[in-house]
């Protein structure tokens, strides 16, 4: 089987969501030293239900997924990524950019105007580069405003 075939299978993504949900609840449970019974009480569900989620077997309605996330002070943000783009990024070892805990490394690159602007904002945080960044920003505004 090719990697792309696995990435296009429902099984892969179903397991991904189930495992993410497991991690969310298990981390909360261990951090707060709670039993499955206490978690069930917090959610207002049966212990068996919690066991099912903690076994990585969650397969309920979307409404339940949303309720669970909110009960653990998380919002469930869903992104739909183009499959071919994901497969290409995955092949380049970049799948982490799609993970919620991913924190991008900020580079001072001139990657288009947007990238340049964000680089300026970062540069302004550093005393040594503040004035240069401010001057650059002014000259850009002047440039953009020109008819």
């Amino acid at each position, binding site marked *: *089987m*090719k*990697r792309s075939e*696995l990435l296009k*299978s429902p*099984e*892969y993504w*179903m*397991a*991904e969501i189930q*495992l993410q949900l*497991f*991690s969310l609840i*298990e981390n909360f449970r261990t951090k707060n030293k709670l039993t499955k019974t206490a978690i069930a009480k917090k959610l207002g569900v049966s212990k068996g239900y919690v066991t099912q989620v*903690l*076994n*990585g*077997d969650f397969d309920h309605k979307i409404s339940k997924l949303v309720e669970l996330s909110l009960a653990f002070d998380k919002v469930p943000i869903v992104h739909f990524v183009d499959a071919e783009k994901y497969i290409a990024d*995955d*092949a380049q*070892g970049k*799948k982490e950019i799609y993970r919620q805990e991913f924190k991008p490394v900020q580079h001072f690159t001139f990657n288009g105007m947007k990238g340049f602007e964000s680089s300026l904002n970062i540069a302004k945080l550093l005393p040594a580069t503040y004035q240069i960044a401010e001057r650059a920003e002014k000259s850009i505004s002047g440039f953009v405003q020109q008819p």
Partner: protein
Amino acid sequence: MAKFVTVRVEEINAKEVVEQLVIDDKKQLDVFQEALKGTTYLSEYKTILKYIEYLADGNTLPEAKFRHLKGVTDGITEYEFKSKHLRIYAIQFPLKKIVIFLGYKNTQDKDIAEFRSLKAEFIAQKKQDNEKKRTTQKP
């Protein structure tokens, strides 16, 4: 005597390298996948591959999906990945996991025995190869 090598599992892309045992040029995953063709287990097989990847990415798996095998005698950690009907057996090497054997839930005892036998042969051959390399490198 069978010839053992390991190659990267192409289906898995994780932070930690995951390899599979190749016995006489036959990749263990390919052999198992072939046996699963036309069965309903192929779906479970894909799910287990995701479990391995999730663990190799540094995450924790539910106990229902994964366990460390007890009774290890050679100090090399053994893993069992589980789905409803399938089992995948792997070992931990420095910086990588190696899938050694694949089996079914209803043949678990026999499969673990087979897994340990293959593991022992593989480790023995690895030691021999390392020994040969060392002796040929000596001036």
